[in-house]
Structures are given as C-alpha cells and as structure tokens.
C-alpha cells in the first residue's frame, strides 16, 4: 500500500451516469417472428403441464381406490407370512441392545410421577395379601423396640405415682428425712465425725428395672438346702467380712 492511497484523497474516483431518451426504432421482422415462436412454445409447455397434472389427478383417483383395496388385503397377508418365517423375538434379542433401550426409556421417563398419576395405589394395596406381609414383619421385635423406645418403666412409674405411688414415695421420703435427722443427732452426741457406713451387700431390686428373684434362690425353695436347715443366717458363725 502506497502513501498516496493511504492519503485517501488521490484514491477517490467519481463515476457520473447520465441518461437520455433513446430514439424510437421500428422492430425488425425477425425479432417479431422470434417473439411469436417463443410465446407459442411457452403456451404449449404450460398447457402440457396442466394436462399432465389433470391426467395425474384423474388417474390417481381412478387407480387409488382399487390399489388401496388390493394393498389392504395383500399387505397383512404378506406381513403375516414374513413374520411367520422370521423369529422376531430372537431377532430383536440378537440385534437390539435391549438394556440400552430400556435404560434410555427409563432416563426419559419420570417413573415415580407416572406411578403416582396413573396407578391407583389404594387399589393395589387393597389387593395385597397383608397377612403374608405381616407374617414377614418381625412384629415381636418391633413391639420390643417400641417398648424400649417409649421407656415403659417410666410410664409405669408415672401412672402409678398418680395414686398409691405418690403416697408411698412421700412416706418413704419423709421417713428418710427423719432418719437423717435422727442419725445426725445421734452422731453428734457420740462424736462420730466420719458419718455412717451404710453400704450393704446385695443388689436392690429397684435398680434392676424389674422384679427379679435374682438375689436369693427360689422364693418357694423347698429344696435340700432348706430341709437341712442350712439357712443363710447363721448365728454366731463366721466373722463380719472386712471391707
């Protein structure tokens, strides 16, 4: 690119168009003949196309009905014959990737909403064999679980403490308070400063959560132990266990 061009002034060129009326000249005879021939050919072509269209319509109308009727009869027969000769299932299994098809279909479908919208779940449940289901449910385990979770001992305590339990616990509590007052006074009188040693052997049933006879033997024990007179309380025998 030169500096002249980049200047932008010397590169600009102007084109001026001027018109003036042409002089009328009579058409030559050859020209006229050509126009006539061309028009005739165009008309003929147009006519031929129109005729062709009309003929096609007529023919197709006339032929379509019997042909369709024939096809209607023949195609099913042929198709049946074809299908009969082909093991379609085997063909599909061999040729189609069924997993991909199903996966694709499932990807495209919102199965949950389809089931919710279109399935009468109540009817399905009504038809279900509930007994068989319940037979398979671990009902006893479930019941134990519920009992454990709701803390039944607490509920029992709440319900019994309403009437007799409240009175009983109140009495026990008052007696306990009086015990402490009495023992405190006595301890002060005898100058016992270390307090009392109240630990006793044995496990309280009250802390076991249930009433177990796990502290002794059988409460109705009529066994050889009792017959031999070997009671647990032995007067003057053995010394106090040293703590």
């Amino acid at each position, binding site marked *: 690119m030169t500096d002249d061009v980049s200047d932008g002034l010397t590169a600009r060129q102007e084109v001026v168009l001027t018109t003036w009326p042409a002089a009328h000249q009579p058409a030559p005879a050859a020209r006229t003949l050509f126009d006539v021939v061309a028009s005739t050919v165009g008309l003929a072509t147009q006519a031929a196309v129109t005729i062709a269209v009309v003929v096609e319509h007529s023919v197709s109308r006339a032929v379509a009905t019997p042909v369709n009727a024939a096809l209607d009869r023949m195609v099913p027969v042929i198709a049946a014959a074809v299908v009969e000769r082909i093991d379609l299932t085997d063909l599909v299994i061999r040729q189609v990737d069924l997993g991909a098809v199903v996966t694709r279909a499932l990807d495209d479908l919102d199965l949950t909403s389809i089931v919710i919208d279109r399935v009468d779940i109540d009817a399905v449940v009504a038809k279900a064999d509930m007994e068989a289901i319940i037979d398979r449910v671990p009902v006893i385990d479930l019941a134990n679980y519920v009992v454990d979770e709701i803390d039944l001992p607490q509920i029992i305590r709440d319900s019994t403490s309403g009437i007799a339990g409240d009175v009983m616990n109140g009495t026990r509590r008052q007696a306990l308070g009086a*015990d402490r007052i009495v023992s405190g006074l006595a301890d002060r009188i005898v100058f016992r400063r270390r307090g009392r040693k109240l630990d006793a052997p*044995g*496990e309280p049933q009250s*802390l076991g959560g249930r009433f177990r006879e796990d502290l002794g033997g059988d409460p*109705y024990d009529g066994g050889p132990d009792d017959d031999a007179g070997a009671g647990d309380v032995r007067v003057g025998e053995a010394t106090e266990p040293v703590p």
Partner: protein
Amino acid sequence: MTTFREYRSRIAAGSEPVHDQPALPSYAVPIQGERAGFVTRASAAIIDVVLVFLVVLGTVVAVWMLSFIVQPATSQADAFAGDRVPRVGALIAYGYVLNVVYWTVGWATGGRTVGNLILGVRVVNFRGERVRWAGAFVRALFCTLFVPGLLWVIVSGTNRSVQDVVLRTSVIHDWVVGVPGLTRKEHP
C-alpha cells in the same frame, strides 16, 4: 433415638436391651441398697404390728360371734359377758405368735412385710441375699421378743439393730414401685 434397624442389628449382635431409667424417683436412686435408718424401720415395724393387732381384733370379734352358736345369749348382759372372748393374756400370746409367723413368712419369701414394702425396705442376709426360712424365723422371734433391739439403729455406725448385729442381716432401701412378684425360677 435408636432406629428400628439399629435396634435389630444390636439385638442380632447379642446385646440385651437396656432400661437405663430405673422406675424410681431420682432422689431415691443413690440410697438404694443402703441400710435404712431408725425412723424408716420403726415405721415399718409399727405398720406391721398394727396389722397384726387388727387381725387379733378381728379374731376376737369372730370368736365372739361364733360363741353364740355354741352358747346362745340369754340376755343383753350375757351377750357381752367376758367369757365369750379369750382372755387378754391369751390374746397377747396369740398376737406374738401371729407376729412371728407373719414376719417369718414375709422375710423368707420376698424379704418384705407389708410395712417393709410401704417404707421401701428389704431384709437381706450377710451375702445380700434373701434370708431363708430358718434365718427369717430366728430373726422374727428375736425382733418380736426384743423390740428395744431396734433402738441400736440410732447409735450404730452402720444402721444395724441388735438383731442385725447378732444375725448379720441388713435392712436395705429397695423402693420397688409395686408389689414385687414372686416369680418361680425355671428348674432344669
């Protein structure tokens, strides 16, 4: 909160369901298994003695009513004659015997009499087990005949009565909620 799935897996793993909450008022939990004091034990004994007294009274009434079958009353004064009921000495002896039997049965079967149950105490032997029949009988006899032995609880450093010291028993706090059941163990 344990889910049912967790619960089942725990049970399947062999662990026992645990009831952490004992059915007890919270203030009573720490004293369970401790030796009970004088007031508690005296109250329990008084309740028992009152019950025995009521039974003796009931027996007197029953004997009095039955006496009319043997010897119908001839007059108003005859109906209330002294010879229709046992003498006081006999009644006292009867009461003592009843008391011994009652305490023996109570302590040997569940470690409790009605008074013990109400006050939430239980009698155990030196091993912490329920006293047996012989021991219960000796203790009942001792307690009935030597009531002042209970006073030793006041001065004892271990809340023991004279009977407890001699027979090496203990009366412990054991606040059961209801009447404890006497369940029979399965014998093999």
